[in-house]
């Protein structure tokens, strides 16, 4: 019996898989970036289907907005000639082999250890907020520190040296 | 007030040096005087606390005192929820009390002696206090995890202290750079601590209590720690900690380390750090693994005898002051190991007293050698001559240290060595007599190299090179006189010290079947 959410799931997952496939195969890097965006949006859809509304929003905002944009900026700051006609490196056949093997193992593992499933509940954003800011307040603050440090680190790394080198 | 002191004084011993570290970090490094005086203040406060701890330690009450507990981490497992498996358990028995006093004394005098360091004094003291915080931690920890933690904490700063402030030396046939010595010291000691860590984890698992607390594990020795397990665990521990006590053939880090280290660090290194090894054997090896200890001790006593003689003869072949004293330290630590290995009341008491006595004595030695080196810029006894004329007080101080080292009665070394000798003769039957004789001969060899050194470097006519040497100044004399006073006090009136040691030795030996 194919339910409506299963159909939605397949649509979203085809977005994810298709986007992901394009990311790792296309030759033009800008296209790859947009394919990544597609995959991220698909993931947001998956989140929605798993009752994680807030996460879906976050996913769109951070990945769809920030991450892809940052990557595009990075592309703009680097050399443009290489963008089209990307080639893969010499161990491509091995890579194919290894990833297929890993995929097989994982799929086998999934099938072999079939999990019982039960229907989940919707989580209200209020609960999530309460949990985040009460139970997990300290890790949350620490995470913000991590971000801050990453920010500073990024700035320091890309800053022009004083001699202008 | 007294309760507060009883509960938190041991914690203070660990925390105050760390406070000192932070404090010194905040002082800009160009204020040399501020750094000097604040480091002096910190170390006097800590030493004062250690003094208070020692004197308010009541040896008439059984059991560990000044207990303090802070639960840190639970480890659930086969043993249950393991609440507070790792907790900062502090407490001292008589042995640890004496070691705390020793650390306090060496720390204070080492600080005074280190004042003369010219370069990056601030960073030196930061690392110095870090090191001492670790040393105090080892002596007062009743938790194996923290024992190990502080053990590592006290080893690692040595690397920087020697590597940065040390001195490289060039000898006719070989050279020792300070970087080499620092690296060797750190690597060898860390290799040893791997063994310790394995042993500690093994004890933790085997005891099946879900705790690292030594006292709690001690109660289940007979049920959970089987004889076979103990026999396997003791060598790990004995080699691991023994490396720090200069166990042959892993002793070479020690003389090289001494030669390269600045005098303040040498004082701590030989005075306190090497004692951690012997202390570890007593605290974990004998207390938690009595049967294993009993099984392996005959080997240790033979090794100890080898170290005594080997170290003494090696010292005889050296001409560099610090090498002589370095090997002499190895030799004297051999006495400690022998004393421990007797498993005898007298021997163990003597070993602990020797740890204290040797600590104070080598501290004095290195302080004096530092005074000489600062003025002459050489430590080669073949070059130095007739220093007694120019540096009379320094000579007398060196003489006192030397006489202590060769076991002259009236100075601390004699009492300790006497007790150890008596212990060795009382244990292991005829073998004990042979080994004991070796030990006594070792003391005679010490006399040869010490007096040879004195005759070469201090006596004889003053060569023109040393015409304008100055004698030690008031600061250095003050530091040295504290050490001399301690040496004399133990040498002449060891009664109170022995009373305190007895408090710790009794329970340890009572766990060992057949020990006297």
């Amino acid at each position, binding site marked *: 019996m194919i339910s409506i959410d299963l159909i939605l799931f397949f649509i979203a997952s085809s977005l994810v898989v298709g986007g992901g496939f394009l990311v790792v195969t296309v030759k033009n890097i800008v296209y790859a970036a947009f394919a990544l965006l597609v995959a991220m949006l698909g993931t947001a859809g998956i989140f929605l289907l798993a009752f994680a509304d807030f996460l879906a929003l976050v996913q769109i905002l951070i990945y769809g907005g920030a991450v892809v944009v940052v990557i595009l900026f990075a592309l703009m700051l680097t050399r443009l000639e290489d963008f089209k006609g990307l080639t893969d490196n010499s161990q491509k056949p091995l890579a194919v082999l290894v990833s297929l093997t890993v995929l097989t193992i994982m799929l086998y593992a999934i099938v072999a250890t079939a999990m019982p499933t039960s229907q989940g509940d919707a989580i209200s954003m209020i609960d999530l907020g309460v949990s985040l800011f009460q139970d997990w307040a300290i890790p949350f603050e620490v995470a913000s520190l991590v971000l801050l440090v990453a920010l500073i680190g990024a700035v320091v790394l890309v800053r022009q040296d004083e001699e202008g080198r | 007030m007294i309760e507060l002191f009883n509960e938190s004084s041991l914690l203070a011993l660990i925390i105050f040096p760390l406070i000192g570290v932070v404090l010194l970090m905040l002082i800009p490094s160009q204020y040399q005087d501020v750094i000097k005086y604040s480091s002096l203040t910190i170390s006097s406060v800590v030493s004062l606390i250690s003094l208070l701890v020692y004197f308010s330690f009541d040896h008439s009450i059984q059991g560990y005192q000044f207990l303090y507990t802070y639960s840190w981490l639970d480890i659930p497992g086969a043993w249950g929820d393991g609440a507070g498996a790792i907790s900062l358990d502090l407490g001292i028995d008589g042995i640890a009390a004496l070691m705390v006093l020793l650390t306090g004394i060496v720390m204070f005098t080492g600080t005074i002696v280190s004042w003369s360091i010219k370069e990056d004094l601030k960073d030196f003291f930061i690392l110095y206090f870090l090191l001492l915080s670790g040393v105090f931690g080892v002596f007062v920890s009743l938790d194996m995890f923290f024992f190990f933690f502080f053990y590592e904490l006290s080893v690692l700063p040595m690397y920087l202290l020697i590597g940065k402030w040390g001195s490289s030396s060039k000898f006719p046939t070989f050279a020792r750079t300070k970087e080499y010595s620092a690296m060797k010291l750190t690597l060898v000691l860390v290799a040893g601590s791997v063994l310790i860590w394995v042993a500690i984890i093994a004890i933790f698992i085997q005891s099946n209590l879900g705790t690292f607390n030594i006292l709690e594990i001690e109660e289940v020795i007979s049920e959970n720690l089987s004889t076979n397990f103990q026999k396997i665990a003791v060598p790990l521990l004995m080699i691991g900690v023994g490396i720090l006590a200069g166990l042959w053939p892993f002793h070479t880090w020690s003389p090289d380390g001494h030669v390269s280290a600045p005098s303040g660090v040498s004082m701590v290194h030989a005075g306190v750090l090497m004692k951690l090894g012997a202390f570890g054997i007593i605290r974990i090896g004998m207390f938690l693994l009595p049967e294993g200890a009993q099984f392996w001790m005959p080997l240790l006593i033979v090794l100890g005898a080898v170290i005594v003689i080997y170290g003494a003869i090696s010292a005889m072949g050296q001409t560099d002051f610090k090498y002589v004293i370095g090997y002499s330290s190895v030799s004297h630590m051999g006495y400690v190991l022998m004393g421990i290995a007797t498993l005898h009341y007298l021997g163990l008491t003597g070993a602990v007293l020797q740890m204290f006595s040797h600590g104070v004595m080598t501290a004095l030695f290195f302080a004096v050698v530092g005074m000489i080196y600062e003025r002459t810029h050489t430590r080669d006894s073949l070059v130095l001559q007739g220093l007694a004329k120019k540096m009379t007080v320094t000579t007398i101080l060196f003489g006192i240290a030397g006489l202590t080292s060769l076991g002259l009665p009236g100075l601390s070394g004699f009492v300790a060595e006497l007790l150890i000798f008596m212990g060795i003769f009382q244990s292991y039957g005829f073998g004990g007599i042979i080994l004991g004789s070796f030990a006594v001969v070792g003391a*005679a060899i010490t006399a040869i190299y010490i007096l040879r050194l004195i005759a070469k470097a201090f006596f004889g006519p003053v060569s023109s090179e040393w015409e304008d040497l100055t004698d030690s100044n008031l600061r250095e004399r003050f530091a040295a006189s504290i050490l001399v006073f301690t040496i004399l006090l133990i040498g002449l009136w060891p009664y109170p010290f022995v009373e305190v040691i007895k408090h710790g030795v009794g329970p340890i030996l009572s766990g060992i079947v057949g020990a006297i």
Partner: protein
Amino acid sequence: MDLFLVNNLIWMLPLICVFAFLIIALFSQYIPTQGAIVSIGSIGIAFLIFIFVLIDFVNGGLLPIHSSFTWIDLGEWQISWGLLIDRISIVMIGLITFVAFLVQIYSVGYMKGDSRFGWYFAVHSLFAAAMLLLVLSDNLLLLYFAWELVGLGSYLLIGFWYEKKSAAEAAKKAFVTTRIGDVGLLIGIIILFKASGTFDISSIIHVAQEGGISNDVIFWSSLLIFLGAMGKSAQFPLHVWLPDAMEGPTPVSALIHAATMVAAGIYLVGRMFPLFELGPGILTIISIVGIVTFILAGAIALVMTDIKRVLAYSTISHLGLMMLSLGSFGAPAAFFHLVIHGFSKALLFLGAGSVMHGMHDQTEVELMGGLRKKMPITSITFLIGTLSLAGIVPLSGFFSKDEILISIWEYNPWFFPVTLFGVFLSSLYMIRLYCLIFLSSARSDYSEKAHESPRIMTYPLIILSVLAVFSGLLAFPSPITEWQGFAAFIDDHHKFHMVPWITAVSIVVAFSGAFLGWVIYGARKIEITAISKPFKFIYQLVSRKFLFDEIYSWIATKIVFTFARWLTVFDRVIVNDTGIDGVGNSTKKSADRLKYFQSGYLYNYSLVMVIGLFLMAIIWWVIE
């Protein structure tokens, strides 16, 4: 304990000297005479205490006085410190305090103007304290304690003029050589402790006499203790330090290396005598060591030309005689000779010091001669000392020697003729020394210009010479008082007796030695080279002191220190560079080879990572 019990007051004896040491060592520049007065005062007070104790004893008093306290308390094992004054120690205290007192007064004149005048007296006080402690202690441990401190005092005083390389070396040699003996002593003490559970001398002897200690243990521990005594009392073959010890100031030689410290070995053996008696064969060993020392040292003394060395070898020789006496059950005779030798030899050394004082510190007898006129008091007192030591009747040395001969004849008759030869030798070399120094005419500028020493130095000489003359009378029982003679004082079982023919032989031998000496060196009737020609080899051997120094220094440099150097190289090259560093180096080497596996490409690394994970999964699977 009540501090003011008379028993506890005996602690004052050593303590007062310790305080003197501390005061002088720390504050010598603030005290008039740099502290000499403190030192002399303290030893004077000690002497007064001795007089007090003696009077008390004569009036039927307190002996033995005993006081002790626990030094280390280890439950089952108690180590205590205790002092004991009995008859033996009363004699020793008298000797020590009296000689030390005189020597210190003498030193004020002798050491005048020395840059370390105060330090000299400080060490003297330290030595006196240690020596008093040594003879007062009631247990072996405290005795060892003092024994070593005495050695320290000796070390510091021999090396007093440390700027001289030879003095520094001599001090070291003295300490190390005696230390070799002390190793034995300490081991012996501890073995006895193991066997009897106590350090207390009388308890040990009691246990041993009850049969509580096996014969083996008694034998070995006695032998080891005797080794200690050999070191301190400079018996062959551990005698080599004593002649070198003459590098110290001469009053030091008089006090430490003639009268007191070197007698400590005799004292120790005498103290432990009841134990030694029980050990099979120990007394024979002691006798042999004693007689060898007696003869060999006497022979060397005959050929030495350094005034202090002659006296040093003479001291060794007489210590050998005392050992021989002890080995022949003659403990009282040994003590008697110890006292009388102490007075006489101190007198001779102080006389030698006086000569050196007048001769600008020249010690070579070849440079002297004819000093009799220039230094009349020194000359006469020196002569008295010489005759006393030569055993010429009726000076004191004669009586003590006589008693020793009697006990040797009674217990060790085979040694008797050899001993007589030794007696002959000792009167010969003493007279030779006197003749060379004081008779005939001056042989150098120094002796031309020699002058008599100041009174502070000559008065002690006079006092000592009086004693050297009259102290022999102590051997006789007193007709008026209860005094039964010295021997009976030491040991109740001993009765004073003389064997007429032995006395006669002794007189003849001593006189013939003295006469021969006078003929050769005084009257110059016989050319010395004429006699020594046929015995050239022996003469060479003797004048090179039987090659002991050469052999020892060969052993020390060629064997011991070479071995030490080899061990140092072994330690560095094999243990450290090959063993410890070897581990590091092999790690480094294998890293050098393995580094070529690193392509440097990130994607290679990640591929290998994944494969690794993959393998781990497989392994896990297999195990499951």
